[in-house]
């Protein structure tokens, strides 16, 4: 452990490895999705699997999101574990009825007679002018609904931690929001299994501020924490929320006892979103933990504009996180902490791909 160089895996390869693993582990596991079997292989996450396991098990689909999701229900009811793929999470809205009215309710509504183990993988688009209809990060909609388990893996590590557990052990339906920009990044990974892969993770420790983040905002939070420490001596707890449903707030509350200050950085809109839910959990437990107003960072309250210039303003980034954190800790907007020059995350990650 000590002397070995850490293993490096890209997000896309972690996905591919876990998909391969799931298909290899059981003949009754299948992947269904438009293009799941083609040469692009859902951005590399299913490449080659149709050849290896057959097109019956890694199956291209017509355009039929609602139908495909209902088919997953029937598969699960008859002994097959379905993995669905959507190349943009926006398209999952076409199956909102199946997910919310059927999948989320099937076990409870029938008094526990049925279970619907399945994994719905959806990719969140961002940058390169995806525009209003190819960029949404819809985790909050589904996290509102009891019966669903919603995750937003922030790294190859969390993919490797969580997907094998989901496909082999977990008995409920799961929706995963995978961020497109993470796919090409490399991560250090540690193969030690976790006791509970759905728990939040403390991924950096500090004492001035708590940053609760999801998905790619976890990377931004880590980078911001490093910047703040280097440039201002401000240290942060960074918590990767990872799973948005049935959040155990202990880690957050413990951190806030120390820091008293909270920033929530999510990939979606703050209103009725992750930021809102984290705020609720905190003030239901103990509002006196908060020594300063909470800051929530997410997409601007508008549909996503296509123009690059607006897109750069639309999304939070390293600078936004640093600025929010510094003004919270220093207690004023003119906090004096230097801001990083980078204007847009996508440009950075095009050049620097990790390892993280």
């Amino acid at each position, binding site marked *: 452990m000590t002397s070995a160089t850490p293993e490096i895996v890209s997000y896309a390869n972690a996905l591919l490895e876990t998909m391969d693993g799931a298909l290899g582990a059981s003949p009754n596991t299948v992947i269904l999705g438009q293009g799941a079997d083609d040469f692009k292989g859902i951005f590399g996450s299913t490449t080659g699997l149709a050849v290896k396991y057959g097109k019956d098990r890694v199956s291209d689909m017509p355009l039929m999101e609602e139908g*495909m999701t209902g*088919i997953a229900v*029937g*598969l699960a*009811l*008859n002994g097959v574990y379905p993995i669905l793929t959507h190349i943009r999470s926006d398209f999952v809205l076409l199956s909102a*009825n199946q997910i919310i*009215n059927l999948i989320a309710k*099937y076990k409870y509504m029938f008094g526990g007679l*049925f279970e619907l183990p399945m994994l719905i993988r959806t990719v969140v688009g961002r940058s390169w002018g995806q525009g209003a209809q190819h960029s949404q990060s819809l985790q909050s909609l589904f996290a509102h609904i009891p019966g669903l388990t919603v995750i937003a893996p922030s790294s190859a590590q969390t993919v490797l931690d969580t997907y094998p557990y989901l496909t082999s052990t977990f008995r409920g339906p799961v929706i995963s929001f995978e961020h497109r920009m993470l796919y090409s990044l490399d991560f250090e990974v540690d193969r030690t299994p976790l006791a509970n892969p759905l728990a939040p993770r403390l991924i950096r420790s500090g004492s001035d501020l708590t940053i609760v983040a999801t998905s790619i905002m976890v990377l931004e939070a880590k980078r911001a924490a490093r910047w703040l420490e280097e440039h201002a001596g401000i240290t942060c707890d960074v918590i990767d929320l990872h799973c948005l449903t049935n959040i155990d707030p202990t880690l957050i509350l413990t951190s806030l006892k120390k820091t008293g200050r909270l920033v929530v950085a999510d990939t979606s809109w703050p209103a009725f979103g992750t930021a809102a839910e984290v705020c609720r959990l905190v003030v239901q437990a103990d509002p006196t933990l908060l020594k300063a107003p909470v800051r929530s960072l997410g997409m601007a309250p508008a549909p996503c504009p296509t123009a690059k210039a607006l897109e750069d303003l639309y999304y939070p980034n390293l600078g936004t996180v640093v600025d929010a954190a510094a003004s919270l800790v220093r207690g004023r907007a003119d906090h004096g902490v230097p801001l990083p020059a980078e204007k847009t995350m996508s440009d950075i990650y095009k050049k620097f791909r990790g390892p993280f």
Partner: protein
Amino acid sequence: MPSNAAYDRMFRTALLIRRVEEKIIEIYPADKIQSPVHLSIGQEAVSVGLCEALERQDLIFGTYRSHALYIACGGDLTQMFAELMGRIGGVSKGKAGSMHLTYPARGFMGSSAVVASHLPHAVGSALAAKLRGTNQVALCVFGDGSLEEGVAHETFNFAALRALPVLFVCENNTLAVHTSIRDRQAFSIQKMAELYGIPYARIDAGYDFMEVQRVAASCAASIRAGGGPQFLEIATYRAKEHVGTGEDFGFGYRDRAAYDAWCAKDPLITDQASVAAMIDAIDAEIAAAVVAAEASPAPGLDELLTDVI
């Protein structure tokens, strides 16, 4: 070949369904069943004939109007009444109620109150059957209204593309709530099935369980032989209001004459000899089920948050 024994058996099941629903009508005003009920009276023979044509490994999917399907597949009566009454002894501990009957012990895998939402479930279970080589047929029963929903198109296309073992059965009572099929569908149901190359058959005598059994059995045989999906349209008649226990001929959207014509052909009305031979035992069975159901307690707080995830 259906024998007299088969006739008697199916007649008995059909009569059991009718008498169960008449019992529901009887006890409903006392608020013993505190939930919407969509009665199958007039439509019993469809479920009876279909279930008679299935094998034990087959799977069944239905709608909110599934009392008949539940009983026809062999669902336990006490568990049914307990379910309708919201008791812990219900098949789903009272969490499901009338709109979501199910009986997995006989392959009845769920019923949904969102019109057409169960069509892809049947097709998915058929895909699993094909992948796993289980020799199962999936039976999917739905109303004529289902055919308007987009998911019907998606589902039929996929079932046909993959030649899946599924029997689609449209219970065509010509109504969706109060709207006639004329005002809803610019297409013919037969042509819709044929669009996907799904073999289609139609039964006009939807009151004739023997006929339903015969045609459904031949569909199932063809499906089991690997012939892919089949489509069966069965004309039937909804005797009561869309939801609830009353009649609704007075509201101008449909005609009592059609009802009378239907009744004149319904074996449960015309074959009074069989009725007389069976009704007492059936009624006793129902009465016992109601008593047993009522003896079951209501679910308590300990059930509120179980089985969510």
